[in-house]
């Protein structure tokens, strides 16, 4: 009564091993989630991520339509393509979610983040910090004799690089908003 002629306990080469080999790659996607701005909506979204073990690398939220009470949540998440697909579908399933756009999948998009850097230092360090800030188009928004606060808007990578440069020059505090993103074109 052996079952068909199937090898017992067949192998991981089975056609239905869920993961294609390339799917082990972890990719980063930016999602725009349009939600009804009701109390608890952010908790629903965040709760979904923690309950299902998804990653949140960055999250921003604000009401973008005050009359329609709609907020836009921008989430940067990372996972295998299978997980990203599930993230999008699970978000779409929430009753308070109107739409989910996978900006990374839908084409090129513009991503911007705002950051504030408090850099303290004297002499050469101070001059070098100012010089680099100019190159990175960071603005001085506060200054004392011993410190600056720079403001910078850019991609997360640009902010990372500026932070790396500021660290040896006396970076004391860093505040980042998280990513806001829009798809390019119409």
């Amino acid at each position: 009564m052996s079952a068909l002629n199937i090898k017992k306990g067949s192998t991981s080469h089975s056609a239905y091993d869920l993961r294609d080999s390339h799917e082990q790659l972890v990719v980063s996607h930016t999602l725009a989630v349009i939600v009804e701005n009701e109390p608890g909506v952010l908790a629903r979204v965040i709760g979904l991520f923690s309950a299902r073990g998804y990653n949140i690398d960055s999250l921003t939220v604000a009401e973008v339509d005050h009359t329609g009470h709609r907020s836009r949540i921008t989430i940067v998440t990372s996972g295998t393509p299978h997980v990203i697909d599930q993230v999008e579908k699970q978000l779409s399933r929430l009753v308070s979610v109107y739409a989910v756009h996978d900006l990374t999948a839908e084409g090129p998009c513009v991503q911007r983040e705002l950051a504030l850097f408090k850099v303290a230092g004297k002499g050469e360090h101070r001059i070098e910090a100012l010089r680099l800030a100019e190159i990175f188009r960071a603005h001085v928004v506060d200054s004392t004799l011993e410190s600056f606060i720079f403001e910078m808007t850019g991609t997360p990578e640009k902010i990372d690089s500026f932070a790396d440069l500021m660290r040896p020059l006396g970076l004391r505090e860093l505040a980042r908003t998280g990513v806001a993103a829009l798809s390019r074109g119409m």
Partner: protein
Amino acid sequence: MTKAMTGAQMVVQALKDQGVEVVFGYPGGAVLPIYDEIFQQNDIRHVLVRHEQGAIHMAEGYARSTGKVGVALVTSGPGATNAVTGLVDALMDSIPIVVLSGQVPTFMIGTDGFQEADTVGITRPCTKHNWLVKDTAKLSEVIHQAFHVARSGRPGPVLIDIPKDVQFATSEYTPMPKAKVDHYQPRVKGDIEAITRMVEMLETAERPLFYTGGGVINSGNAASQLLREFVEATGFPITSTLMGLGAYPASGANWIGMLGMHGLYEANLAMHGCDLMLNIGARFDDRITGRIADFSPKSKKVHVDIDPSSINKVIRVDLSIVGDVAHVLEDALRIWKARGRKVNKDGLAKWWKQIKEWRAVDCLAFTNSDKVIKPQYALQRLEALTKGMDRYITTEVGQHQMWAAQFLGFEAPNRWMTSGGLGTMGYGLPASIGVQIAHPEALVINVAGEASWLMNMQEMGTAMQFRAPVKQFILNNERLGMVRQWQELLHGERYSSSWSESLPDFVKLAEAFGCKGIKCQDPKDLDDAIMEMIRYDGPVIFDCLVEKHENCFPMIPSGKPHNEMLLGNAETQGVIKAAGAVLV
């Protein structure tokens, strides 16, 4: 103009407008205004439960046996927390229920007031959606929206938390047609191109198989009818999950039995060996797939589901159709007929021959005894003696549940209520009461294990008070049988805490509740005892003492593929390796 009313009046009015006939609930300080309104009307019946978990399971039993939305009402704090298990149960099994909970008045929220709990916070991941209504003007609309959300798309539980001051305040009532529900409208029609591709696939398949689930039941009677027509017309074999039993009749010619961890040999091997799997409203649960990597390695898979997130969640499919089962089946049937009703006759004949060989293994065979009642025998007799009656079955969770699924036959949908996704011990007794309230004349039997049954036995009081003649058929093995079975197979026969010690005398317990108790331990007496239970006009607690060490087979051990199923005790030595043992 709509008229002004208090929040509590709105609750009752909205329930009436939604066609609600019965509410299962338990009062407390935070819902007294609503109870006051319930007292002053006769359209909606209130069933006083004995524990809020019971209220939710009753609402589930009511919903599952009628296809309507079940309703429960609980107070704040402990009332709401007691409801949590039931909410998750309904969420996992996609059962439409609306739960109304009281809350401390809005001005006290956040002060750790008496019987305050963050109910919407606690139940957010336990519901399809929930609301805290802080303004009486919004209350009636939210209630209508809640019913809409509970029953639309993939059904599920919703909860509305209503602070006490909102119940007292007055505002204008929003009638049902005026409530805004348009932003939540899940897609019901499947993509015609995809449906056509499915039809093309089934025209040529050599070894096709319908794999159906609870989605068919949830979709409604039309879905079951269409499924039956499709199955008969194509001649394809059909299997179903635990949740889908009854959508296709057990006596139907193409029925090959339930699949899954304790499913039938022929059903699981057909899943493993098919070349076309038509998943209609099932979700590739881990009880079904076994080891993912070896799941049905040679088949093309089609998945019809109303919930897009179910698709490719666990098993990657070759073709997905998002839509309501009835709509999709209707289109598929029409297209298949229009294209000339083609099937691969030769392939099918061979396939059936193979399935019949598997069936000849007779996987449910067991060694009967004339000294002790075998649980399988008890269910065989229950089936024989109640077949053809207007019968509804609920179950608890454990071996008895799996045996019930194996040995009872379901001819129609909505006749089988069991906790599938969550596996909630304590579900069956209250669920049976909910079913009986919905179908007062029917024979409603809860097939129970003694341990599960004790978890919500207080609800016998509810059964007595509301004259629900539910039959509690307890397969008493004096063991947490399913736990014991796993300990035998996985934990070196070390039976850690899997005895049911100090059990009550169930007959005396029945008497204490004022209902009938029957005890049976001799196979010879069983038929008469069952008939006595059926004939008794009132609730019965039937203590059926069964073999204590019987194991439930077939069994696909955790971490094994379908074709490594265990058929009986002889095959069980050391079969589950460490990797399987970590699975549940």
